[in-house]
């Protein structure tokens, strides 16, 4: 039980840190747009650069297979 004497202050300090971090996130505008990012992740699949990267990776893995 004596561990609690240390753990309680540690917990309070951690909460304090979490709140500070949360305030910083809110003030830097990270919660201002809660709609956009949810959609943008879907469109990224169509990004030509992303597609090219995926294709390249697939080719690479197929070329690697016979060696393995």
């Amino acid at each position, binding site marked *: 039980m004596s561990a609690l004497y240390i753990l*309680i202050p540690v917990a309070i300090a951690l909460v304090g840190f979490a709140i500070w971090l949360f305030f910083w996130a809110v003030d830097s505008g990270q919660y201002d747009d809660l709609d*956009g990012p949810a959609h943008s992740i879907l469109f990224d699949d169509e990004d030509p650069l992303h597609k090219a990267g995926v294709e390249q990776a697939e080719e690479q893995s197929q070329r690697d297979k016979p060696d393995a």
Partner: protein
Amino acid sequence: MPAPTPCYHCGLPVPAGSSFHAEVLGATREMCCPGCQAVAEAIVAGGLEHYYKHRSENAANPQALPQALPDELALYDRSEVQQPFVQQDGELSETQLLIEGISCAACGWLIEKHLRGVPGVAEAHLNLSNHRLQVRWQDSQIPLSKLLAELRRIGYAAHPWQPDEAAERLAAENRRRMRELGVAGLLWMQVMMATMATWPEFNVDLSPELDKILRWTSLFLTTPIVFYCCGQFFRGALRDLRTRHLTMDVSVSLAIGGAYVAGIWSTITGQGELYFDAVGMFALFLLAGRYLERRARERTAAATAQLVQLLPASCLRLDADGQSQRILLSELRIGEQVLVQPGSLIPADGQVLAGQSSVDESLLTGEYLPQPRGIGDGVTAGTLNVEGPLTVQVQALGDATRLSAIVRLLERAQSEKPRLAEIADRVAQWFLLFILIAAAVVGLAWWQIDSGRAFWVVLALLVATCPCALALATPTALTTATGSLHKLGMLLTRGHVLEGLNQIDTLVLDKTGTLTEGRLTLKAIHPLRELDEGACLALAAALENRSEHPIARAFSQAPHAAESVDSHPGQGLQGRVEGRLLRIGEATFVCALSGQAVPSIAGEHGQWLLLGDEQGPLAWFVLDDRLRDDAAQLIAAARTRGWHIHLLSGDSSPMVGEVARQLGIEDARGGLTPDAKLAVLKQLHGEGRRVLMLGDGVNDVPVLAAADISVAMGSASDLAKTSADAVLLSNRLSSLVEGLKLARRTRRIIIENLSWATLYNGLVLPFAALGWITPIWAAVGMSLSSLLVVLNALRLSRTPNT
């Protein structure tokens, strides 16, 4: 005529015989106008055609966006104009632009992708919630006017944006609410752990000093929740007590305050039970409910509020030599002369000094046809010059204009808006009274039996019956329903709409742009000589294609071009098609060419245009403002609810009576000014009616603001949208019919929720009165009842028939 196919880009009907199309996603798509075609081609050329695959809504019609001339955009490159809204950061300039024309999430993707591909743009980020684009660019590589033009190329209008006081306050408040929610959540978890350890049910073998430490720890952690997060409840309660109302805020404050004060007492004395976790849970649940409700409502309301742009940003001033120079509207003075080109907005009230034209005043007056204006006539700021250039002497500017008078009428009307009673507040009132009486009785009884326990029993009673579920019952249902409505194409901007729709008994409608589509379409062709309908249409279209008049938009692209077309404002057009001299327009004007008598009109309503050549008249064209397809459906839905229906239009033409006859509306009045419309509404209010107003024009704005509930069309003027309680984004009246149904279901769910919450509190009351309730049972009961209420509300997110 059959219903036309919708335009692939914007969804508006494609005129018959249109020749606009574009290759999108591997197929040829029909377009309604050259604007849509150009935008679609620009999107495809930029490699961004996936936009069409991902969008969930049609795009805005590019012609519906405010027009911007290249030299008007160039004004934004002047450094003194940029100074208030552009920040310099070394090489880079940074600004925020407000984007008009965003209809769904795919638009955000399109804008960001397109701008990032433009050389010189370092960063582009669009906030979908408030439609603001943050952009950083190199001014040496690309001027701001080019950026605005790039956005226009893909179908969006951008306006420089400066945060005003209201917008800043709103943003600051949103962040403050978010912080409160976060603090309540983070601290509650800690408080719960510390408090639960002291509960006997968990059987933690605590030493007395550890028990004391945990009590002080939870007090320390609960204090910020009460003082930082719950301020809004206490302030609300104080306000309501001053006006002698018992509302939800009062009962919430009582529960939170009671539990907190008792907790302090128990911490200091080391006796009794701790209810700190209940304080945290209560605060978190309620704050979350309110935050979600707030967000659902303010999603795009904040964005459109910025867009009240009824006047052009710049105008062409004429100096003493008759030279025109483009200046900002703020630089214009009374007595100066301005040149108003066809197709642009008139910047100030004034008198025509030179020129002959017609002016589209439909937004201001509801007249659906442009009114002829010549030398000596007065013109009004905010109306659209249609046909020829006008020189106008400025007589009134800014606050002195007729437009501002309407805006002032709006402000007065808003302050007179009646408040519809909310069910939750009425229930809360009775609930609180009942609980307070019960607490007093139980407290007295226990005082007689065991005075030492009386306080704790009363406290347990207050906490256990704490109206958490009751307070969540309405916000959760409203939030879910608001989300479903948004999917159906109806955006609610104020909270009382869903509940209020059930109390409505009178429907007031505007005609132009609301019941009708607000633009002329070709209804019939009556050939008078040897040429058939198709040939006459081809000739008429060839002439009309060269005109900017709204009538011309009813005609599709012609197969052959006309030569030397002259516009005779107020009369018609004259031109040569394949060597044949033709006139179209007013019957007398057309017949003057051949010297023949004017043929008689067959009696249909609408705008009759005559086409003729030198041998005589060729054909009649009947143009009409088409009724919306779902207008009858809306009227039927209103009638089954037993509502009174009134049609109030600013249009003085016989169209009003005709529309009323087609839809079977008995009370139809035309030619009403905004004041007269407001007077009719006041009279209805005087009779004790609850009025739902549906409109779109600036002339409807005062009535929209004063009606119990007002709904604006998506194509309405910005001012109408911001003063309405809801906007039909889809521009379909059927969305409103769906909204009415959903409002009924919402009311049912709210009543279910309220009944369940009261039932739970009623059941728990006897146990609390007997002193059997300990903090753990209070916590379990509170969470379960709240969960049930939330799950019940979520049923509203399912739309029927899907």
